[in-house]
């Protein structure tokens, strides 16, 4: 016989399966924008933003999109991961993956689990071990935040580079257009006898 706690947790897991985690979202996106974007794949039941408490603030926003059923969820994930899909702006496409229970702010308690702890004093034989675990945990979290920072820097660099490329392309096209417009291209094609030149 399942306890009410288990029932609630099972219900929660079912909700998790129906939910897509979407990130790389612009912080300006709002719930109506997101739900109208994902309504194309099915019915969006709920959109909940994941608060970014710890930063860095430049991290893209993450959002949990709860669909009506699991098929719709699969459709979202497969489409969005195969094709670039942009929400509320461009040109950064969003990413989607299946949600996990720990992403939910309002997740219920795991049934049957109790929080256990013990204090380990410096004179405890395990103290040294515990201290090493702590050091390792700190190291991991420092590495993690360093990687995030690095990643943001990379993104920034890439974005600058792309912007420059875009400007260069634009200039190139402009020049070509001008050459075509004022007839210089045709003249040159005639001078050099370029038979394949299409715009003559």
């Amino acid at each position, binding site marked *: 016989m399942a306890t009410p706690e288990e029932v609630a947790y099972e219900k929660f897991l079912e909700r998790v399966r129906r939910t897509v985690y979407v990130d790389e979202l612009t912080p300006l996106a709002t719930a109506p924008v997101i739900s109208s974007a994902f309504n194309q794949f099915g019915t969006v039941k709920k959109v909940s933003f994941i608060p970014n*408490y710890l930063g860095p603030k430049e991290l893209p926003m993450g959002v949990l999109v709860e669909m009506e059923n699991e098929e719709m969820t699969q459709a979202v994930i497969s489409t969005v991961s195969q094709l670039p899909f942009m929400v509320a702006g461009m040109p950064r496409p969003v990413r989607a993956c299946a949600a996990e229970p720990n992403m939910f702010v309002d997740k219920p308690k795991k049934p049957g689990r109790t929080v256990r702890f013990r204090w380990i004093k410096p004179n405890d034989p395990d103290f040294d071990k515990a201290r090493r*675990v702590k050091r390792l945990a700190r190291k991991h979290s420092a590495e*993690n935040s360093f990687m995030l920072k690095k990643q943001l820097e990379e993104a920034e660099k890439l974005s600058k580079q792309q912007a420059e490329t875009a400007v260069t392309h634009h200039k190139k096209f402009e020049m070509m257009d001008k050459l075509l417009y004022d007839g210089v291209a045709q003249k040159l094609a005639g001078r050099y006898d370029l038979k394949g030149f299409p715009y003559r």
Partner: protein
Amino acid sequence: MLQSNSAGGEDNPDFKWGAKRGVGRKDNKVRFYESFTLEGIEYRLFDCAYFYRFLGEYEPQWDELFLACGDEKGVSNINDVETIMGKCNVVCTSDDRRNPRPGTKELRRAKYIFSRTFDTRLRIISEDFADAIAGIGVDKLFNMRRDKQPVKRLNSSAAAITRASPVKSFRPDLGSTKLGKHDNRDAKLMSRTSSLKKVTFLEDRADHVHVKRNPPVNTETTTRGQIPILKTRAFGELYASGSSVNAKPSKKRKLILNTPETDDSDDQGPQSGEKKLIKNPPLVEKAPSQNIEKKSWYKKLPFEDELKPAIEKGRVLLIENLEPSYTSLEVEFLFRQAFKEGVDAKMIPSSPMSSPHSGRALVIFGTTKAADSAMSRLNEDCLMLSGQRALTGSKNVPVEIGRCRSFTGHFNMVDRSLMTAQKVSCCITLRLFSVVISLVMVTHRKPNSPCQITEYYKLTPLFSLIIVNRPHKFVNFQPHP
């Protein structure tokens, strides 16, 4: 209630502090508590209690007290816990029409009565009761009406009148002592509890009290600022210390429990438990304390709102290496158990960018000191959770809470209703506009083959574009003449 630092409950095996309410504003070594237990009797905020009062030249009468009023010192005080002698019943025998008459039973049970007020400023005793004393409606100080009484008392009072029940409560915090002036007539004391608000007055008659229940506690005062700090001492010293104290009685005990939470509680309806308490001190008993749950003191703010001021004051710790599946409530529970601190915790939701093996939580402590001591305890010892997780804590919390300002490499469409292809090009920024123009020109080059943006995407990802409401069809930019 005021706790002197060093004089904790340790000295006295029968004494134990109850729930803590906060720290003194001026002196953070002073603690306020909601309750304590002495010799098996639990004293809670808003209980009526009698106090040691050092009356100096007063010659208090045996069971009559005066209700302090006015706005001078003495109407509401902060009292040290050691001054509390025990719980008592106080009945109002005033003929004031607002006061329900006490029955004979009540009178018999009452330890003290009062029917007059003593104005601390004018120093006169009067039969008239002002409408409010120290911010408390006077009807709250009168006997309780029968209909408002707790159920168990209902049968007792025959008339609509309340019984002045003996007051049990004892509230060190609240109880303030009022002193008459020395020169005044026989000042009596009364202890009466009054509301949260700081009002209570009355003193006890010292002798009477002493005789009856002399707590093992003794007091010796050291004045710290305005707040006297009492230390528990040997029993015998009581009287001696008392005499030294009364030299400046009025300065010494001051107001009682006026902690910030109290103010918040005011917002609640008049029916709240606390107010009730106040209303008839005699009835008070335990109802008050139970009703005064933390919740009733203040409305819980959303976590974000609480986080901001807490970060400014350094009350927030970032706890790492938790089991990622913990909920915020479990973290709060853990801290309550491990640190004996009530905290407000929030698990940080995991994301593909966070470690899947380590959960993090932001924990807001009630005070900076509590946060610091928890922090140092975490550093010195190890708090090991099941699964060999040693918690780490840091003050490495974000300085500012707020939304992201920029999003690299992305151009927002400011107006969200504009989501169609044509309009996109209207509201994009200048730089992107040039991109779109370039795209149009590319298409222009090959009029028969519409430009598939995904192809372009392969060249420069910046150029890829899918419009939200047509995700499956790629946008075709038709060449404009």
